[in-house]
């Protein structure tokens, strides 16, 4: 079973539909027991970092997610959900994340020239870093995925598995052992995105 963490942030309709479409047994939940029993956990998110991080903390889901991830359960953060995996974000102030991936979140406008539009929105090709990650095992370097974001992950070189070019190279996906993060939206990236989700749910828990 794949559990999508429901912590009151954003719209989970497309994510749930995409997982159903690839044949996953999927549940949208904020129940800690359900999360513990899931084979895979997906942490979604759109909106502002501070608000989302607070909602995770207030619900106590932050502790459960950290425990389960540390115990080896495959976890994927998507978009803001990916950013929450990091140590901290500098979106409107300075806010702590889950600390599952080393690095920080900063505004894209700090690193791209003025004529680049913010948010970075649209289809952009992936540039693989190192050996292809297990979540990219069935797709190719150069395949396009769909991005919508104004902040990006940095100071995280050792965990970057893909970047994308937008004036400079922005972090597109990261991993640290069983923890994965996609800045783009696999649930909106057509066949390529569905394939990434398919590969993720094939990853086995390592105990």
């Amino acid at each position: 079973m794949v559990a999508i963490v429901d912590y009151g942030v954003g719209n989970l309709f497309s994510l749930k539909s995409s997982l159903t479409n690839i044949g996953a047994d999927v549940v949208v939940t904020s129940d800690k027991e359900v999360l513990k029993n899931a084979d895979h956990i997906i942490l979604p998110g759109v909106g502002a970092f501070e608000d989302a991080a607070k909602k995770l903390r207030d619900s106590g889901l932050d502790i459960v997610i950290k425990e389960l991830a540390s115990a080896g359960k495959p976890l994927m953060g998507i978009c803001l959900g990916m950013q929450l995996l990091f140590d901290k974000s500098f979106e409107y102030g300075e806010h702590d994340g889950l600390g599952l991936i080393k690095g920080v979140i900063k505004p894209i406008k700090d690193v791209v020239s003025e004529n680049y539009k913010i948010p970075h929105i649209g289809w952009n090709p992936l540039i693989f870093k190192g050996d292809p990650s297990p979540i990219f095992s069935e797709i190719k370097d150069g395949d396009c995925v769909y991005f919508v974001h104004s902040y990006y992950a940095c100071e995280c070189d050792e965990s970057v598995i893909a970047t994308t070019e937008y004036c400079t190279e922005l972090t597109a996906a990261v991993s640290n052992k069983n923890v994965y993060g996609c800045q783009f939206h696999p649930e909106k990236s057509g066949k390529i995105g569905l394939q990434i989700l398919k590969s993720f749910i094939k990853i086995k828990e390592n105990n």
Partner: protein
Amino acid sequence: MITKRIIPCLDVRDGRVVKGVNFEGLSDVSSPISLAKYYSECGADELVFYDITASSDGRKLFTDILCETAKSVFIPLTVGGGINTVEDFDRVLKCGADKVSVNSGAIRNPSLIYEAAKIYGDQCVVISADVKRVDGVFRVFAKGGRENTGMEAIEWIKRCVGNGAGEVVLNSIDTDGVKKGFDLEMLDAVCNVVNVPVIASGGAGKIDDFITLFKTLPKVDAGLAASIFHFGEVKISDLKNEMAKANIPTRLT
């Protein structure tokens, strides 16, 4: 390098796609769900569903169809038509829309964009403007292009973006339906004053019109069209191959 988007627009009334549709191999050519799947599979980068229903029954049907479509189409979906309140945003976003485009609703209620952007984020709010030259000035038209609001278009679009619209669809009434190419002059004027994605609409008649658009105005992010795609006059796969050949950044599937 971000790719240029190609966006078919489906006008939906009472649950069916209007404007004649002519496709081989599609059993139900006026079903929005079948058409959306077809476009998604042949490489469309995004879909716009435009609700032109007048009745509340029709609106309910539209919402149901949107949900059905979003269950099986995994590319970005933008919804427009009949969006007048934040509740309308909520209604279509819950059904799987990613972006919501406002037009007359923003003209009637100028705070709509600001309110919606505050709740759902700038990336979610699209200002769709119907613009026509009147005595040499770009004017904003309301009610599907029938009513001159008297507002100067460039200032209006700037204001909408300032209020939080994260994307602009510029429909040129002057070139719409003429099929002789996009309104490059009008698009250029808008691109020069906003720093959010601009989607060109109105005037595409053939593949070359898209090539000219992206070559002449590199700041334009996407091209939108309806009937030339629905009638099969331009096939999206052919269009994208030609764009790639012309060295326009393109997503090939």
